[in-house]
């Protein structure tokens, strides 16, 4: 999995590329930990280039969301592909991690 980090005044965007699965979750964990260490208050996970999320990837997203909540910070998700969106929806993930269709909406939502 490739991860590009973009630091903005309102938060950090992680542009993910590849599958978020049991086999390749290490890179995501590292990127999240780095954002946390940097004091990130709003982590936006851009899922536009993520084709597939398995159960382990889903658990990791929830774990990250919960750990950010404990720090009064937030995790949001950006533009998941249809199949990933379906998986998220089945597990009720949008109730925990808001999903946005563009960066501006995500950034504004947190600021509001």
């Amino acid at each position, binding site marked *: 999995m490739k991860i590009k980090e973009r630091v903005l005044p309102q938060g950090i965007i992680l542009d993910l590329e590849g599958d978020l699965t049991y086999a390749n979750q290490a890179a995501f964990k590292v990127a999240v930990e780095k954002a946390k260490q940097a004091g990130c208050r709003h982590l936006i996970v851009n899922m536009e280039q993520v084709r597939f999320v398995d*159960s382990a990837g889903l658990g990791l997203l929830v774990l990250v969301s*919960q750990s950010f909540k404990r720090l009064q910070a937030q995790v949001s998700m950006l533009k998941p592909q249809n199949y990933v969106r379906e998986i998220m929806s089945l597990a009720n993930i949008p109730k925990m991690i808001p999903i946005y269709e563009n960066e501006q909406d995500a950034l504004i939502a947190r600021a509001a």
Partner: protein
Amino acid sequence: MHSNALQPTGQGLDSSAQPKTFVAAILLVEDEPVTRASMAARLTRLGYRVLEAEDGRAGLDVARRERPDLIIVDWMMPEMDGPTFCEAVRRDPLLKSSQILLMTSHDKPAQIAEGLLRGADDFLSKAASRQEITARVLAGLRTSRLVRELETTSSQLESSLLLLQAKQEEMETDLHSAAAFVHSLLPPQGSPVQGISLAWEYQPSLTLGGDLFGVMAIDAEHLGLYILDASGHGVAAALRSASLMTFLRAENIIQLIGSYDPEQVLFEANRRFPLSADGEYFTLWVGQLHLPTGRLTYASAGHPGALLSQTQSPARWLMRSSFPLGFDPSALYACDRIVLKPGDRLFLLSDGIYEVSSPGGELWGRERFQKTIDEGKPMSLSATIASSFSAARGWQQAQHFPDDAAVVGIEMTGDPDERLNG
């Protein structure tokens, strides 16, 4: 000791002063007593322990017994000359990595080439100066030390590998035993109660799987059904699944909550199986079938759902959005209800059956799985399940599934009045 082998002539450095200092041993094979004594004396003065042999055969005996760090052998000797000695050393499994300096009074290129080809590592002129002897001996000992280190490392690696292989075999035996045990907990195929058929196929991605299911009599009128999926793979996931499976046993649930009401089963399971510190969790689908009426009550905790296949209409998914177990400690799980009629089939499945990719990376997906179930209506229940596995394998062009894959089929075969637990 061989009669032709001579005792070492000296101990080199003062061993009483430096008892723990390593003293390299050099075997000197030379038939000419004066030359041998002279060279031995020079080497002893340089601080080495010198072993002597007066011909090639005696030299081989000493070498096997003492494993010297370096062998210096004369070219010209009766019976076994220096190059023949080198060849014998290279053939000997115990000695073949020995460092050999071939001593000669000639230094013709053709002779040197022949000596090297026949197994010598370097040459030493009989007329060599003290400095040259020192340099060549040191170079030979340096190589010898490296070769021995390499041999030691290689031997240690080989031992470790053997140990690892033995451990792995032990672990695999244990895993197979555990897998056989878990398999024995799965419901027997056939007819769990009169008027109902049960068939399933299950392929764990590893020896032990994290997807498990159950079909069991709750009381005379109810059949309990569940399928669970542990996130992750391997032994840890399988152990967690076995733990949840134990929790879901009919007698345990009845004792805990008084019924197999899916809503309450999920509520209790959610309380007892929180999200782990590593993000591990379960999805779970639970159903309760009222045998006299065919009424199925079911609820799901983030599970991809069950598929209902009816004779007169396309299959449809029995699912609704809900948190997997442990995501939200206060989550509530609502029940849905349907009535199953004779001929209806209910399939419980894990996502591993349809989340398989073609070599080009395209997912097989739920819709294609559903299509195999629809097309399987004329077939027997077990043949329909087998065809779904076959289609998934064909799609991914591989026999083994990347995740645990399970499909459990239940068919209402008879009159409702027949469907009572004996």
